[in-house]
């Protein structure tokens, strides 16, 4: 990388900067959602934007998710490029009809005639004892439903580039930020929540995975905060001479199946780590991809670590028991190597 002084930002500030730059460049971009104005978004994704763009383009809404997400769809099909914020992804229940029956299907129903260029951004994830209606990730639920892209950045650089790509995309993009990668001052963060972010606008392509760390013995495919859990595990394993390749999927839709296959063909072993519920989700899809496309390369049955199909519990000891962590990944990798 460059040796010049690198400007560093938190993931949260990288997101708000991406939105600001696109709003500056394109008058059709605007934001609507709860507490996104004076408050700046509960997780800071719109920090400072009200002052810069005013209430006509940074629109605080009532607690009416069906109404304002539906309105974003209508604005998107009529010449604008809205960004709607759903405060917590857990709140999708009150407005899912607009998301999956409307936003995700209009383009298809119209035989490609009508475009829905909008971003639905939302916060996800647990680890701070916020209980079962404020701690889920749920990206697998959305990825299961055809018609929307699902983007889940793990670091500041990707967060900015993927947000700009999402805004410029002519499809509906669900942009999910895990609270634990944002670098918020009021929450424990991993140290990689702050990192180099170029000042000029740039894009990161949606649908391309990234190798967060190269390795040879086991592929650990994961997303968002669990990328950092895997990187922490990689440091531990390295001390014992075990080399893992950490694959940051970055988006679930499209899923970069080639990147999964390339890595598995190299390492011959696959562990998938996800903070979403285990059954019928990302872990199953990634493993199926490997089995279908690289069966002959596998030296052991693929394994997975995910939420064991229970709602996220409140009590710290219970929540930490169900969440993925570096220790579980270390154990999972070793188990694969002895399989």
């Amino acid at each position, binding site marked *: 990388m460059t040796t010049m002084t690198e400007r560093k930002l938190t993931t949260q500030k990288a997101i708000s900067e991406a939105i600001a730059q696109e709003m500056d460049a394109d008058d059709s971009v605007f934001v609507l959602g709860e*507490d996104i104005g004076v408050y700046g978004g509960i997780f800071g994704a719109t920090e400072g934007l009200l002052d810069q763009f005013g209430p006509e383009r940074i629109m*605080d809404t*009532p607690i009416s998710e069906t109404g304002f997400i539906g309105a974003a769809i209508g604005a998107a099909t009529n010449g604008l490029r809205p960004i709607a914020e759903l405060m917590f992804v857990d709140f999708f229940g*009150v407005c899912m009809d607009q998301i999956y029956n409307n936003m995700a299907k209009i383009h298809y129903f119209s035989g490609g005639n009508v475009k829905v260029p909008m971003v639905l951004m939302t916060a996800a994830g647990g680890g701070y004892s*916020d209980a079962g209606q404020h701690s889920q990730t749920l990206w697998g639920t959305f990825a299961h439903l055809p018609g929307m892209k699902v983007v889940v950045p793990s670091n500041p650089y990707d967060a900015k580039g993927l947000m700009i790509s999402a805004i410029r995309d002519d499809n509906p993009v669900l942009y999910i930020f895990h609270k634990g990668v944002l670098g918020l001052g009021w929450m424990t963060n991993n140290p990689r929540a702050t990192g180099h972010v170029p000042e000029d606008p740039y894009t990161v392509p949606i649908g391309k995975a990234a190798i967060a760390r190269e390795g040879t013995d086991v592929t650990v495919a994961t997303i968002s905060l669990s990328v950092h859990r895997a990187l922490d595990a990689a440091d531990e394993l390295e001390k014992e001479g075990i080399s893992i390749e950490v694959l940051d999927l970055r988006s679930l839709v499209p899923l970069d199946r080639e990147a999964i296959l390339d890595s598995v063909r190299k390492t011959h072993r696959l562990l998938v780590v996800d903070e979403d519920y285990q059954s019928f989700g990302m872990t199953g899809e990634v493993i199926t991809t490997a089995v279908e496309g690289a069966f002959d390369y596998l030296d052991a049955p693929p394994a997975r670590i995910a939420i064991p199909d*229970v709602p996220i*519990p*409140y009590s*710290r000891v*219970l929540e930490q028991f169900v969440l993925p962590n570096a220790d579980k990944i270390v154990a999972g990798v070793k188990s694969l190597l002895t399989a």
Partner: protein
Amino acid sequence: MEIPRDHLVDMYSTMVKIRYFEERIREIYFADKLPAFDIGAGEIPGEMHLAAGQEPVAVGTMPHLKPGDAITATHRPHHVAIAQGLDLKRMTAEIFGKDTGLGHGKGGHMHLFSTEPNFGCSGIIAEGMPVAVGAALAFKKLGKDNVAISFFGEGAANQGAFHESLNLASLWSLPVVFICEDNAYAISVPKEASTAIADNSDRASAYGMPGVLVPDNDPVAVYEVVREAIARARAGEGPSLIEVKTDRLWGHFEGDADAYRTDEFKESMTDRDSLVVYGDRLVEEGILTADDRETINEEMHGEVDEAIDFARNSPDPAPEDALLHVFA
């Protein structure tokens, strides 16, 4: 109609208990999160929505309840739960995430559930409203003279669930009372920036039910209006909508910088603090003496302190118990 003295005194005592409970929770919540606030740290982690200032709406409803009456409350549930008489020790233990808690630590402060008394709450806006309608439907079908009370904030009145619930309750003439706790702010968004009309009680007319505004944060005013609505519901005459103008003295959640409300507004809430105003009034009217107030303080504080000690001294759940209770 005359209000029995014991009701007037019980309402005050319960207000004292609620306020002291919220103050203790607040103190414990912050104790191990400062100076650098970390929401996930400490003895009580996670979001914490406290109801100091909103006591009147809960205690004014309480004297009219009978065993079996159902309540659904919000993400800010402690005042209602305490007023309805949830086991304070087990409720507190749940807030501390302990195995002795109402939900063995699975739910936390936004997800308190009890069958006796019949109480539930939720972290999603307006989520409890249809559930209250369903409880009332069950009472009607089962021939019980119980009522369901749905508490919700003024922000919830802009959710679809509010409108669907009112329509259903009226259509089926169900024994449910909808009580809007209007604290004027949906987190940072003031009511006038989110709601097309001034008073949500006016929305009752669209659903063919009485709508009553309680303009003051006064337990006696709440008492009188709720008495009539509950009597109406028990008599099989259908639902009512009540809106109470109340005050959320602190931030939306603890740790909220609360910069969206002016200092003048916050001072005005302190000046009209219903706990002080109502207590003074009871003394002026000769219902309580200053000594009585002192005794009430001691008793209520003692009960809260005991519950907190119980919670603190209770064991954590076993980690693997996270896997229990997904199915019956």
